């Protein structure tokens, strides 16, 4: 049944939903980069929750369910919320995280009260406002997508034009002010962009999950690159991919909600990025740590063999691997390390299980002058290469 080609009506819905989800991913991915780098990820959460009473009030005041009108209310409320957070942190001793939590819960609570009040009203015109709570992508109309598109374009334009300004603002705001940049104004613009990106996604993902769309793509993108430009692009890409995948998957599976599916997809991207990204990924770190440990082991082994060779005064004398065991090493590990060293030319296998250090290995462990000691004591021609001693003296 899943294979049954979607009929025209479904196709229209699907296209609208997919387009809307992509726009949502694009705008929140781009804006999220700055929110994450400024360590203000939770600002998105507070603002999306704060948008709810704005939507309800916009409806109560205008009795209109026009998306543009409701979202205008969302913008105003989100804005007011961020303004209050700012005011609280600047005039009181309350820290940013507490202020965010405060505004989030107060606004969201108020929004729920208004929503309940609206639903209790006798006329039936109120239906559908709760779609902003968890999002309802299927309710997206082409006109809504147009509104989302305008918001997205505004966000992209701001980032493109104010690229260097935003970069400096995020990296070093004090220096920006010393240079004479209008930091306060830039902050206002950046906050507006976050509000805008959130509002773009509200109808699809809802106020509760929207902050995931701001944080997750950027957090995933950060794992893969050390350039801001690439990070913004990747974050946008992740957002778009998550939006599209979520929309498609939920449309093909009955009764799978779009918003939460999108959030799940983007969370999957974060998980993969945290684990597998080169340099920053956990798996990468683990492998690097392992390689380092192996190297330390090999060094230790080589040093042991060098000490034995010096003790015996000979590079010809082989030693069984059992002698070379160190604390915490299994017999297999010892042999493995010996084979590794052999292939590197530092060690040679004298007989069945007897190992000796080579001149190359000796030179590695005891560079320059220390090599002389051995040649003095041993008198073996192999060990007392004339170039070796000459190098040590020059």
């Amino acid at each position, binding site marked *: 049944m899943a294979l049954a080609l979607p009929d025209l009506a479904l196709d229209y819905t699907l296209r609208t939903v997919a387009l809307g989800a992509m726009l949502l991913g694009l705008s929140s991915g781009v804006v999220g980069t700055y929110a994450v*780098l400024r360590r203000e990820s939770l600002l998105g959460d507070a603002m999306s929750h704060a948008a709810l009473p704005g939507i309800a009030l916009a409806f109560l005041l205008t009795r209109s369910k026009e998306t543009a009108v409701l979202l205008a209310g969302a913008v105003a409320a989100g804005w007011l919320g961020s303004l209050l957070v700012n005011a609280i942190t600047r005039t009181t001793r309350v820290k940013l995280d507490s202020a965010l939590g405060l505004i989030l819960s107060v606004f969201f609570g108020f929004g729920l009260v208004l929503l309940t009040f609206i639903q209790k009203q006798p006329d039936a015109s109120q239906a559908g406002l709760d779609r902003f709570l968890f999002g309802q992508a299927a309710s997206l109309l082409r006109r809504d997508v147009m509104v989302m598109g305008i918001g997205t374009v505004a966000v992209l334009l701001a980032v493109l034009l*104010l690229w*260097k*300004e935003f970069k400096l603002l995020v*990296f070093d705001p004090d220096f920006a002010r010393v240079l*004479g940049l209008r930091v306060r104004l830039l902050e206002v613009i950046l906050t507006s962009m976050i509000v805008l990106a959130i509002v773009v996604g509200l109808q699809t993902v809802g106020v509760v999950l929207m902050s995931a769309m701001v944080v997750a793509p950027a957090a995933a993108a950060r794992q893969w690159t050390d350039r801001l430009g690439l990070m913004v692009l990747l974050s946008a890409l992740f957002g778009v991919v998550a939006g599209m995948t979520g929309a498609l998957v939920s449309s093909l599976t009955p009764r799978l909600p779009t918003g939460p599916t999108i959030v799940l997809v983007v969370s999957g991207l974060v998980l993969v990025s945290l684990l597998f990204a080169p340099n920053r990924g956990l798996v990468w770190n683990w492998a690097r740590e392992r390689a380092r440990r192996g190297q330390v082991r090999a060094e230790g082994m080589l040093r042991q063999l060098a000490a034995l060779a010096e003790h015996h005064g000979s590079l010809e004398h082989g030693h069984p691997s059992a002698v070379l065991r160190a604390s915490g090493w299994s017999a297999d590990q010892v042999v493995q390390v010996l084979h590794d060293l052999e292939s590197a030319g530092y060690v040679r296998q004298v007989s069945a299980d007897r190992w000796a250090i080579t001149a190359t290995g000796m030179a590695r462990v005891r560079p320059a002058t220390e090599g002389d000691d051995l040649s003095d004591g041993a008198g073996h021609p192999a060990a007392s290469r004339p170039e070796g001693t000459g190098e040590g003296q020059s």
Partner: protein
Amino acid sequence: MGDRQNRTVSAVEVQDLTVAYREQPALWDVDLSVPPGVLLAIVGPNGAGKTTLLKAILGLLRPVAGQVLIFGQPVEQQRRRISYVPQRGSVDWDFPTSVLDVVMMGTYGELGWIRRPGRRERERALAALEQVGMRELSDRQISQLSGGQQQRVFLARALVQDAHIYLMDEPFQGVDALTERAIVTLLQQLRAQGKTVIAVHHDLQTVPEYFDWVMLLNVRRIACGPVAEVFNEHNLRLTYGGRFAMAAFAREVEEAAPAIVTPDRSRSGGGDHGTGAA
């Protein structure tokens, strides 16, 4: 000598400056007048308001009272002539960007809105990196820098601005010997170009060697003037109070200071002497 007679306008003039954080004064009625071309060290114990003073001069803080003049004008009108080297720890070095990119930020002020740095800005940034011995690291991601390298990146960023006054917040804090030498050379170059440098400094021992002027600060201004005149045990005691446990060292500095600073005026051997004493 000519300075005093001509009464040239001060590079930095601070009058009756008081700054408070929640009733607690961080700076109290501070006056400061720095003639152009001077290397000034600001010293004082922790919490003395050294960083606060720098930030107030830069206009990053709103004072309770008092005013700051840069070449006789408010800071806002002199942005192009001031440069700032903040403490290394003031930014997140994990920010996704390269060394060259950070240095180019020094050109953002003159570029104005929207315009992006181009080839000329790039060349200047590379030249500044050259000056601090970091040119070959220009492509490096900033999270891979050592503390000393971070400091030199910040210095290069300030140099790119080509300002007249350089305000530095503990440029020598936790840097390696190589960087310390690079900074000292840089300070001397800046002085040779007639630039003014005001640096928060922690190492009292190197004050006479690296700087011409010193300001002793502990919320109030204790003293300010040429090192030879004001950098003595009496003032250090006033500044550091009971916490000044290096009385013997202070005497040493007092003895060394005139010998170092006097030839400094004619610029010869000042550095050598200082190194010998250390």
